[in-house]
């Protein structure tokens, strides 16, 4: 695996929220979350992830499992 994927914590976290909160199958009528304030969250998150300690803590779960799998060998 090269360092190409997930090398930037800010990008990764924002990309994750872009997906998890806004994309994916919606089971209409069962969804309890409707994210109207995503922009607001992002502004705060940028502050949050600028802390090195937080960024390091957040990177671990993503890199540990996402990059160690068989798919990680492709790039």
């Amino acid at each position: 695996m090269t360092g190409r994927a997930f090398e930037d914590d800010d990008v990764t976290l924002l990309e994750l929220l872009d997906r998890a909160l806004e994309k994916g199958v919606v089971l209409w009528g069962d969804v309890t979350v409707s994210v109207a304030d995503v922009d607001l969250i992002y502004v705060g998150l940028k502050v949050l992830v600028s802390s090195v300690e937080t960024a390091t803590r957040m990177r671990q779960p993503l890199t540990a499992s996402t990059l160690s799998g068989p798919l990680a060998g492709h790039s």
Partner: protein
Amino acid sequence: MERDEDRPGAGARNGGGSQGGGEASYVYAVVEVRDVPIPEMLPCAGVIGAPVYAVASQGLAAIVSPVAPEVFSAEALEAKLHELTWVAANAMAHQEVLAWLLTRRYTIAPVRFGTLCSDPDHVRTVLTRHAQHFVQTLGRVEGATEWGLKLSCDGHAVAEWAKSRNVQAGRMTGGVVGMSEGAAYFAHKQLEQRVRKETAHLLGAHARDLHTRLSSVARAAVTHPVPAGGVRRDGPTVLLHAAYLVADASVEAFHAAVCTKPGPGAPPGITCETTGPWPPYNFVNTVLEELG
């Protein structure tokens, strides 16, 4: 705030202790399990540290966690979505579960963060009722993963470059020697505008060219809107924000295409960031009709 203590991975795996009565099912994904069996309990921690189970029906399985419904009620979530550590930790936990499935090559349709069913029976009903839809969706994304791409340029570098082009262009057109102050000012402004236009054109052409190349390698592609208003002078400007569904066999070709350099004469400071492999969030983005 005590929920933050329940961060996934904090070792709290006992959330299933009171399974059954009064617990809702938080849904992560729908998975194809006809060919690849799935364990009844997955060895990972889910949102708010809850255990993760597979609820199977007709060759499909929904991946779920038992959670107290009040944690993910509309009101609770509205408040929690402003708690950044909570959002980040639980979105990560959601992703962790999907990553576990992804690395084991399950074909998955990720479900949006914060989706609840009232109980496992409700989950089975959803699977049965929408089986055909899920089979179609899963067929589209089988053997592929999603890759995100952000092409951006550094406004400062582009501005400096444009300025040097202004000077060059100024020389080529004979400069402002002999002009009145007003005319020189006008000529300068005109030149600046021309260079800005050319710059935007070059950047746009590169973004389009890259997207065309990547789309030809990918099985499917989705572009997200980028901010209008041209290149910002003070920081990065996103030129292309897209997601690509890439078949496993094409991942290398995809990365080779990502490395395409901007053509000669293009401004400096262009960067291209990819993230992945992601579950195919952008390619299962459908809303199922309400259960009758």
